[in-house]
Structures are given as structure tokens and as C-alpha cells.
């Protein structure tokens, strides 16, 4: 009888808490979103599974010596995993559409207003009793508006590791929800005739421009905003490898196996932060709400900037492409294309939206650097 009690005490059933049960269900929901709804499955599948593992009673995945503990220590505490992913994203990004029309960069800048407005909003929320965000917390939350996973994880790991799980989940979820969140805002802020505007075809871009672009970006960043150089630097390295054309085997590995390996473990490490004590709180609700607001404001400010630019530009600018400035590459650009096609069956905005789209990636990395410097 005594032995049976001992045996019972080794089971998870005997030790599982309500919080752990809830978090395992959260993990299951993430897996459902990843598999059945195809929400950013490359990240949400490992994150969801990591959340389940992290909440297994008695198994110690996240305690010293546990698998997820090591993965988090090695990959996130050091910042290596998001930076390696960012290098991979750089190696996968073609800046051609942006170089063909540099002004589009402004749209990728304007959309970052979502970040800074949300920072302000998060601090304002402190007037609500029960919520208490420090400036670092607010900054980490607001970066969700940047619509860029590795940037959000990197910044959260520096400023608010306790919120990292919720922030990463919110960021990837909203990125997956771009086709649902953005179109109503786009329709609200543009008229039918604006949405029908056709844009001039993009000029072809020379190889030299593409090689010098990442170099120009890293030089400007190091001169003006050194705190953004980890993110921007790794991104530019990836892009330079790609465009230089002389290290194809490195580029290929960076775009494929290296980014894949890191993605699996990054997801698991993020999932390890989905623990009951931290996630099942009022704060998470605040993060989810603020994240959605950040996203919406970013989309809106991108569109409004595009309208403003259209007023002063000789070439016509379809304001829809401003929405792609949030990044969420290439989903946001595809949504722009689709909404554009709804108004005009022969207007293909995809390539025009790619400019602001990749500018948005740079824009939020720069914004993250500013937050690191100022907070």
C-alpha cells in the first residue's frame, strides 16, 4: 500500500496543477492553430509543443539540467537564436523592389508608429489598477507592432524575459492573422478609387546596388544607432552573403538547414517560457490587446503615410501598399495584392508592396535598436 502511494506520487496526475493543465491546453491550442489553421506553423508548432513540455509536472524540462533550460540558456539568453534567424531572413530577402523605389522606405518607417504609440499606450494602461508595466515591459510589448518574430524575441529577451513567451506568441499569432486584421483597416482608410490606382512598373536594379545596400545599411547603423547593430548587422551579413554571389554554399546553408535547425530550438525555447505563473495573468491579456492595437496602428499609419506621399509624388502611389510597411514578409504584401485585386482585377500590387514590406523589417529592427538605447 505504501509502495503504491509512492508509485502514485511518481505520476503526473498526482502532481499536476491547474495552471499546468491550463498551459498544456494553451500548448494544444497553439498546435491546433499551427496544424489545422496553418498559423505560422514553423514557429507555432515548436512553441506549442515546447509549452506542453515546459508544463509537465515532475519532469523538470525548464529546471537546471533540463532540455529546455539548456536550449533557452544557449539560444535565447545569449541572443544567438533570434540573431541567426535574422541572418537567415537577410539571406532570403531581396531588396530589389525597395532599391527600385527608395521612397517606399518611408512606408516601412511610418508603420513603426504602431510600436511607439503602443509603448505610450502600455504606460497609460498603468492608470488601470492591477496592471503595472515597467518601461522595459512596455517596450518589449510594443515591439509586437513591428510584426517581426526574431526582432520581438530578441528585444523581449533583453528587456523583459518573463514576458517573452506571451510576446512571441502574440507576435506570431498576429502575423498569421494579417489577412484578417489588415483588410478592414485598409478598406476603412482608402476610397475605392484610391485602391484602383495603378503604379508604374519598377526599374530593374543592378547587382552592384544590391551588394552595396547591406553595406550602406550597416555603416549608417553603426554611425548613428549602434544599439541596433546586432539585429541589423546579422541581417546585413545574411543579405551580403546572398547578393555577393561569391559564397553560394554558405548562403544556401544559411537559408535552409541553419535556419531550420535554429527555428526548431528557438520555438522550443520560446515555448519553455509559457509557464503558468507567467502566462496566466492579467498581463498576458494586456499584451494580447496591446499587440493587436500596435498592429492596427502600424497598418493605419503605413496607409496614411502612403496617402500623404501620394499627394506630393509625381508618380501615382496606391495607398494600400502602406499597409505592407508593418513587415510580416511576405504575408502583408500578399494581402495588399489581394485587396488591390478586389478593386481592380488587373492591378497587381505584389511587387510594389514588397518594397515597403522589406523596409518594414529594417524599420522594426531600427526601432528595436532605439528602444534598447532609450529604455
Amino acid at each position, binding site marked *: 500500500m505504501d509502495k503504491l502511494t509512492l508509485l502514485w506520487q511518481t505520476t503526473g496526475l498526482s502532481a499536476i496543477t491547474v495552471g499546468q493543465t491550463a498551459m498544456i491546453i494553451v500548448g494544444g491550442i497553439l498546435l491546433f492553430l499551427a496544424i489545422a489553421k496553418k498559423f505560422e506553423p514553423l514557429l507555432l508548432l515548436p512553441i506549442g509543443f515546447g509549452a506542453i513540455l515546459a508544463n509537465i509536472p515532475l519532469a523538470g524540462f525548464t529546471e537546471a539540467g533540463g532540455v529546455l533550460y539548456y536550449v533557452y540558456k544557449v539560444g535565447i539568453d545569449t541572443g544567438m537564436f533570434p540573431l541567426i534567424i535574422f541572418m537567415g531572413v537577410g539571406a532570403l530577402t531581396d531588396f530589389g523592389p*525597395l*532599391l527600385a523605389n*527608395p*521612397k517606399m*522606405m*518611408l512606408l*516601412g*518607417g*511610418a508603420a*513603426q*508608429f504602431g*510600436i*511607439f*504609440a503602443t*509603448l*505610450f499606450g*502600455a*504606460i*497609460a494602461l*498603468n492608470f488601470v489598477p492591477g496592471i503595472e508595466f515597467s*518601461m522595459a515591459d*512596455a*517596450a518589449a510589448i510594443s515591439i509586437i507592432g513591428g510584426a517581426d518574430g526574431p526582432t520581438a524575441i530578441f528585444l523581449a529577451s533583453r528587456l523583459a524575459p518573463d514576458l517573452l513567451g506571451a510576446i512571441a506568441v502574440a507576435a506570431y499569432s498576429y502575423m498569421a492573422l494579417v489577412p484578417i486584421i489588415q483588410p478592414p483597416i485598409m478598406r476603412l482608410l482608402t476610397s475605392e478609387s484610391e485602391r484602383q490606382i495603378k503604379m508604374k512598373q519598377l526599374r*530593374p*536594379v*543592378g*547587382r*552592384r*546596388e*544590391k551588394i*552595396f*545596400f547591406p553595406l*550602406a*545599411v550597416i555603416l*549608417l*547603423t553603426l554611425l*548613428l*544607432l549602434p544599439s541596433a547593430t546586432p539585429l541589423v548587422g546579422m541581417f546585413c551579413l545574411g543579405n551580403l552573403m*546572398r*547578393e555577393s*554571389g561569391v559564397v*553560394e554554399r554558405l*548562403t*544556401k546553408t544559411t*537559408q*535552409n538547414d541553419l535556419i531550420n535547425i535554429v527555428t526548431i530550438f528557438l520555438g522550443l525555447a520560446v515555448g519553455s517560457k509559457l509557464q503558468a505563473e507567467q502566462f496566466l495573468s492579467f498581463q498576458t491579456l494586456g499584451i494580447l490587446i496591446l499587440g493587436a492595437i500596435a498592429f492596427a496602428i502600424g497598418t493605419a499609419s503605413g496607409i496614411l503615410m502612403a496617402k500623404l506621399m501620394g499627394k506630393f509624388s509625381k508618380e501615382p502611389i496606391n495607398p494600400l501598399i502602406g499597409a505592407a510597411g508593418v513587415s510580416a514578409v511576405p504575408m502583408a504584401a500578399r494581402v495588399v495584392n489581394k485587396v488591390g485585386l478586389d478593386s481592380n482585377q488587373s492591378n497587381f500590387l505584389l511587387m510594389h508592396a514588397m518594397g515597403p514590406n522589406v*523596409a518594414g523589417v*529594417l*524599420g522594426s529592427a*531600427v*526601432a528595436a535598436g*532605439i*528602444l534598447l538605447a*532609450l*529604455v
Partner: protein
Amino acid sequence: MSELFINAAEIMAVGMTSVIAFLLLLIFCMSMMAKYLPKGATHEPTPRSARKQSKAGNQPSDDTVAAISAAVHAYRTQRKK
């Protein structure tokens, strides 16, 4: 508390200005590059790997083409006999 609030407003203003200023500088650089960089061919890098991954059915790989020509040649030679 209200100090935090003012601080946040400040970060919002300074941050957004910095982002835009930075990107304006970058736009300036890009325009300079477009103007003054000697134009090479607008050669696409398209690494081999990327090309292979693309499912472009009409771009069979080099050794497939070689194999085909060999096969067709062999077949043709054989038929002649």
C-alpha cells in the same frame, strides 16, 4: 508614475523621429547609389540552389538535359541501324 508617462511620450517622439530620420538618410544613400554606382548588367544572383528549389518545370537541370540528349541520340543512332 506621471514621470513614467512623460518619459513614454518622450520616447515616442524621439523614437519615431529617429526612425524616420534614419530611413530618410538611407533613402538619400540609396539615391546616391542608384545615381553614381557604375551600372553593371542587371544580373540576377539566383543562386543555383534557389533555381533548383523553384519548381519551374521548363528549366530542367543541366545533367537532366545532358542525359536526355544522350538518350535521344542513342535512340536515334539505334533506329538508323
